[in-house]
Structures are given as structure tokens and as C-alpha cells.
């Protein structure tokens, strides 16, 4: 096992654990917590895919510009994950706001109390 494999395995397992929690929990808040864990797992997988073993961070302060292409890791997944984390907070805030409205409407956070769309 090397660094990339360990991080990939961690990311995939975090996704699976988060989805399991989201599917089996009854409490809406606990479902949102599980979603944030799955979100972290997706980010770990993306960054691990962009990592090339033995290379350095894509910041050219000590690396000469001419050697940059052979010494830095892939910067594109990092930019992608940076935006994904910020959007993840936005999505979490939205879910929490709706969860609070549901609690105000029904006085409960148990998902089995909300049966309007159940068939």
C-alpha cells in the first residue's frame, strides 16, 4: 500500500459509510451529518487521483519555472476540490435551513413522520 492507495481507499470507504448513514438514519440532522462525511470522502478521492507520487505542491516559489511541468502534481483536481468544498458548505446550510423549517412545521425531525410524498 502506498500513499495514493491508502487515500483512495479512505475516500471510497468514507463515501460508503456516509451513504450508509444517510440511508439508514431516521433523524434528518443525522442524515445531513452523514452527507457531509460522504462529501469529504468524494473530495479525498478527487485529490488522491490528482496526486503523482514523489511530486511537490503546485506552488512555484522554490521550484524553477522551467522544471515545473516535471516536478509539481496535477493542479486541476485541486482547483476543482477547492470549489467543491465551498459549494458543499452551501449545500449543507441549505439542507439545515430546510430541516429547521420541517421541524417548525411538524415538531419532529423523524423522517418517517413526513409521509406526504410516500406511496
Amino acid at each position, binding site marked *: 500500500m502506498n500513499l495514493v492507495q491508502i487515500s483512495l481507499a479512505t475516500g471510497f470507504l468514507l463515501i460508503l459509510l456516509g451513504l450508509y448513514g444517510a440511508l439508514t438514519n431516521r433523524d434528518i440532522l443525522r442524515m445531513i451529518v452523514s452527507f457531509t462525511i460522504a462529501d469529504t470522502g468524494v473530495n479525498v478521492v478527487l485529490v488522491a487521483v490528482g496526486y503523482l507520487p514523489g511530486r511537490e505542491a503546485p506552488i512555484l516559489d522554490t521550484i524553477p519555472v522551467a522544471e515545473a511541468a516535471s516536478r509539481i502534481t496535477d493542479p486541476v483536481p485541486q482547483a476543482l476540490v477547492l*470549489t467543491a468544498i465551498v459549494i458543499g458548505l452551501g449545500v449543507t446550510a441549505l439542507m439545515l435551513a430546510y430541516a429547521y423549517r420541517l421541524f417548525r412545521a411538524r415538531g419532529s425531525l423523524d423522517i418517517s413522520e413526513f409521509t406526504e410524498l410516500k406511496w
Partner: protein
Amino acid sequence: MNFTTRKAIPLVLLLLLGSVFYALFAGYTPDETLNRSASYYASQTVQDTGAQNVVTAIIVTYRGLDTLGEVTVLFLTAAIVGLVLAHSKAPKGRSGSGFLPSGELLTTGTRMLVPVILLFGAYVFLNGHLTPGGGFQGGAIVASAMLLMLLSDSAERFSHRLISRIESSAGLTYVILGLLGMLFAGGFLDNRILPLGSFGSILSAGAIPLIYALIGLKVGAEFSSILTSLEATEDSQ
């Protein structure tokens, strides 16, 4: 549907997904070299943009339009959170935090720490083109100063109207800078409307520090408004 099938369905789904993940994991070998777009970014960033941090160059310049879209998504999120919680505004002068009332230590500490935290946030987003950091990280730090003020009940001085003013003017300036790039340089959000300067100094990389500072202010204002609307609204009896 009885109890055991209800337990079994998620496990079966996750087993299927897990086998897909295992196939991906077992067949993965890391690349030896960068792919074509990444090696273009690695070799041309300094020449094109003058930024030391390649990730910043990608976010602000090469994929600047995506970042504009992302900031817009964040603005929409803040607006929707405000809208969803709008019916339960706190009456004036009442603490909505739901925690214990803040003590002397927290109030004094906040007064001392908030300017320092704001300064650190500004440092992070102004140095985004040189060191790790930038608008999103700096914006989160600015929002954490706001969080501290919310916890110590001194947030009234930092009104919601000021937050929305900062947010909208930063967004407007961001778009105007992008349009200036179309007029005076290669395209929308091109950073070469300002001189590239000497590589590695703080006033370099053209408009990148300016644009990232605007992104930082906008993101910080949006996070602060999400935090205030989730915190400060109180059940109105």
C-alpha cells in the same frame, strides 16, 4: 415491507456501489507525467499570468468563469437560506444564539481578536497568488470573525445591510473587472489589464490579487449572511 427487507436494501445497494469502487481502486495506477492540460498550466502559468500559485491561476484566470458561477451559486444559497428562515426574525435586542449569555471574558476577547482575525483573512486573500490561500480560505476566515461576534452578542454593530452592501458591490466590481478584461486584454476575466509586475512580489500577477480580494470579500459576506440568518432568527411568538 417488513423489517429485514428494509434493513437489507441499503446494504445491497452499498455492496453494489462498493464493488464498483473496488474495481476502480484495483485498476488504478497513478500517472507518471502530467496530462496535456495540466502540463500546459504548469509550464505556461508564469508566462501567462505571473502567479506563483498555479491553483490560484487556474481558479482566477483560466477557469475564472467557473469561479464566477460558483460565487453566484453561493449567493443564491445565502439568499434561499435567508428566504426560508425569513418568517422567524428575532425581535430587536434579544439574543438568538441559544447558548449561555456571553461573559466578560468572551466579550473582551472578541473585541481584541476580531480585528486581528480580519487582518489575517485579508492577508490570506491578498497573498493568494504567492502562497497557499486565497479568496475562499480568506473569506472563511473573515466569516469566522463574524462567528465570534455572533457568539458574543456584539453582532448588532455589524449590520446585515452592511454585509449585503459589501456582497453586492464586490460582485459588481468582479463582473466589471471581467468585462474590462474583454476590452483591454485577451478575454473575459483576463488578468493582464494590469501590468504583471516582477514575479514573486505582492503587487504582481496583474489583476489576480484584486479579483481574489473581491472574491474573498464576497465569499466572506455570503458565509456571514448564512451564519447570521441561521443563528439570529428567533421563534416569534
